[in-house]
C-alpha cells in the first residue's frame, strides 16, 4: 500500500468518499438556497431552520402517527413546503421590490423564532431517530466500511440535484421561471401566472431544505440548533459557487465536502475553518463566485 503525504492511500480514498457524502448535504442545502435566490432574489436565512423543521417533522410523524422514514421523506418536505408557501404569501411577496436586506432580516428573524419554539418544546439536547431497517448495516469496500445509509444519501442527493438542475435549465417550466425572474411583466403578458409560480418556487426551495433535514435525521443529532450550525457553511458554499447559480451550488457543495474531508485527515483542528478560508480567497480573486456571472 503506497502513502500520500504520510497518509496510507487506503485511508485517503475513504476520506474522499466521506467528503463526497458530506458534500451531498451541502449540495442539497445550497441548491435550495440558490434556487430561491436565483428566482426570488431573497437571501433565505431561515433555510437552516427549515432543514431543522424537516428533521423534527420526521420525528413527530414517527412518534405520533407511526409514519416511518420512507413516507416521511415525502410527507415532511410537503408539509414544510406548505409552511414555506404560507410565509411567501404572508410576508415575502411584499419584499421583492425592496433591498435584499429586508428579505434577509425577515428570514433571519423567522429562523430565530422557529429555533426558539423548537427549543422551548423539545429542549436542546436532541431527539432520537434511527436509521431505517432496510438501510442498516454496510459493506466493506476494501479501503473502507461504507454504511448503506451513506450510500443512499449520496445517490438520493445526486438524483435530486441533477433533477432540479435539469428542470430549471432544460425544460419549458424552467424557461418560464428564468424568464419570469428576468422580466416578470413580459412573461405575465403571455398569460402566465407569475406570482403563483414564484410562490411555488419558494415552497420548492423550502421543501428541498426539509428533504435534507429528513435525510440527516438518522445520522445527525436532531436538535433545534442543527440548522444554524450548518447554515453558515452552506452560505459560504453558495458564495463560493456564485449566488444564484444552480450548477455552481451543486458542484461547490460536493467539492467543498471533499476539501473539508481531506482537512479532517491532515489538520483536523482547522476542519471547520477551511471553507471560510477558501471563501475569502475566492472572493478576492473572483468576487462573483466560481460559477457566478458578473453584474
Amino acid at each position, binding site marked *: 500500500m503506497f502513502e500520500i503525504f504520510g497518509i*496510507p492511500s*487506503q*485511508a485517503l480514498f*475513504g*476520506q474522499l468518499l*466521506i*467528503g463526497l*457524502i*458530506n458534500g451531498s448535504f451541502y449540495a442539497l442545502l445550497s441548491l435550495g438556497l440558490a434556487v430561491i435566490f436565483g428566482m426570488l432574489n431573497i437571501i433565505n436565512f431561515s433555510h437552516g431552520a427549515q432543514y431543522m423543521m424537516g428533521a423534527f417533522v420526521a420525528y413527530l410523524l414517527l412518534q405520533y402517527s407511526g409514519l416511518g422514514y420512507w413516507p416521511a421523506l415525502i410527507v415532511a418536505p410537503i408539509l414544510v413546503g406548505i409552511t414555506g408557501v404560507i410565509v411567501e404569501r404572508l410576508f415575502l411577496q411584499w419584499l421583492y421590490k425592496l433591498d435584499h436586506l429586508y428579505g434577509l432580516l425577515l428570514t433571519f428573524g423567522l429562523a430565530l423564532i422557529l429555533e*426558539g419554539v423548537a*427549543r422551548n*418544546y*423539545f*429542549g*436542546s*439536547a*436532541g*431527539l*432520537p*431517530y*434511527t*436509521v431505517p431497517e432496510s438501510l442498516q*448495516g*454496510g459493506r466493506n469496500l476494501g479501503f*473502507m*466500511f461504507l*454504511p448503506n*445509509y*451513506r450510500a443512499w444519501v449520496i445517490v438520493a442527493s445526486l438524483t435530486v440535484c441533477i433533477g432540479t438542475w435539469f428542470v430549471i435549465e432544460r425544460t419549458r417550466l424552467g424557461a418560464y421561471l428564468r424568464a419570469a425572474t428576468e422580466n416578470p411583466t413580459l412573461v405575465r403578458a403571455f398569460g402566465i401566472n407569475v406570482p403563483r409560480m414564484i410562490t411555488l418556487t419558494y415552497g420548492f426551495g423550502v421543501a428541498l431544505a426539509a428533504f435534507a433535514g429528513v435525510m440527516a435525521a*438518522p*445520522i*445527525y*443529532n*436532531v*436538535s433545534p*440548533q*442543527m440548522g444554524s*450550525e*450548518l447554515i453558515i457553511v452552506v452560505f459560504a458554499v453558495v458564495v463560493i459557487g456564485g449566488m444564484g447559480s444552480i450548477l455552481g451550488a451543486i458542484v461547490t457543495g460536493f467539492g467543498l465536502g471533499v476539501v473539508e*474531508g481531506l482537512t*479532517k*485527515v491532515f489538520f*483536523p*483542528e482547522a*476542519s*471547520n*475553518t477551511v471553507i471560510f478560508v477558501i471563501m475569502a480567497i475566492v472572493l478576492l480573486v473572483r468576487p462573483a463566485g466560481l460559477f457566478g456571472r458578473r453584474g
Partner: protein
Amino acid sequence: MRKTLGLAALAAVLACGAANAQQLNVKIGVLSDMSSLYADIGGPGSVAAAKMAIADFTKDHPNVKVEMISGDHQNKPDIGTQIANQWFDVDKVDMVIDVPNSGVALAVSQVAMNKNKVFIVSGAAASDLTGPKCNANTVHWTYDTWMLANGTGTAMVKTGGDSWFFLTADYAFGHALERDTSAAVEKAGGKILGKVRHPLNTNDFSSFLLQAQSSKAKVVGLANAGGDTINSIKQAAEFGIVKGGQKLAGLLVFASDVNALGLPTAQGLTLTETWYWDANDTNRAWTKRWHEAGAGATKYPTMIHAGVYAGILHYLKARLDMGPGEHDGKSVVAKMKATPTDDPLFGKGTIDATGRKRHDAYLFEVKPPAQSKHPGDFYTLKATIPAKDAFRDPKDSNCPLVGS
C-alpha cells in the same frame, strides 16, 4: 402625649433595626448556557434547581432573604467574564453558580478570585479548576474530568479495553478530559494508540471515526460533550464501530444525552455519573418537584442540576453560620470547606483543600430497550466508587493551595 408618641416611634425604629440586623441578605447568580448545546444539561434546569434550593432553605430559615438572577454566557469566555464582572460590581451578587463549559468556568473563576467573591462550579468539567488553576474562591461541586477518566477509563481497562483512541473536542475541557483519561488508562496498564482533535460543534464525525477504526484500538474514547457526543455515538453505530469489535467509552454522557440518542443506539454504553434521577425515591421525588418548578416535563434532570441545588444549600448553610454582615469570598469558601456537607441528593461529603467537593461516583451501563421499565429508566448500576477514590488526591493536584 407627644413625648409618648415620640418614644413609641423611637422604639419602633430600634425594633426595626434589630430585625434588620438579624436578617441575612444573599444574592446568587446562576450563569449558564441558556440557549445552545449545553442548555439541557444546565440552563433553565439549573435555574429551576436553584429556585428549589432557595425555597427549601428559606422555608426553614425565614430570616434569610435570597435573591436570584440568571444569565446566558453563550459559551463565550468573554461574555461570561463580562456578566460575572457586572454581577459582582454592579448587581452586588455574592455567589455565582453552575457555568457549564470549562473555558468559561476557568475565566469566571479568575473573576471571582480578583473580586474576592464565591464561585461554585457545577456545570464545567475541567479538573484544572481544582488543579493548577485552583483558587481560594472556587468550589468545584458535581464532577470533573479526573473523576470521569478514573471511573470510566479504569473500568474499561479492567474489562480488557487496554488500547485507546481518542476523539477529543478541541478546547480546555476536551484536552483536560483526554489528558486525565490517558493518565488513568496508562496507570491501569493500557496504552494510547492515537487521537484526533475535532472543533467544538462538529456535525459529521465519519472522517474521525474512520481514523479511529483504522487505528485498531480496542476502545474509542469520546472526550467531548453534548451534541458532539451524541453525533459521535450515533455515527459510530452507523459505521459499525461496536459491531466491528471496538468499544465506545462515553467519557462525559448525561441522562439528557441518553434520552436524545434513544436506548436502541445508546445501549451498552459505560459511563460515570455522580447523581442519577432514578436511583432512589428521594431523587425521584426531587425530579417531580423539579418538573413542577418550571423545567420541561419531558426532560430528565442531570447531575449538574442536582449539583446546583446541593451547592446552593451548602453555601447558604455556611453563610447562616457566619451570621449577618459582610463576609469576603475567601472566608465563606473557607467556612464551606470546614463544614462537612450533607444534602438530600449527594448525601454526606466534604470539600477538600483544593475546593474539590468529594462524594461517591457511580459506574453505570445504559440498559437495552427491553429492560427499560418506564420513560427515563436508562441505567443499570455497575459499581459505586467511594468518595475517597472517586476524586483526585489533593496531593496530586498541583494546586498551589495545597502545601507540598
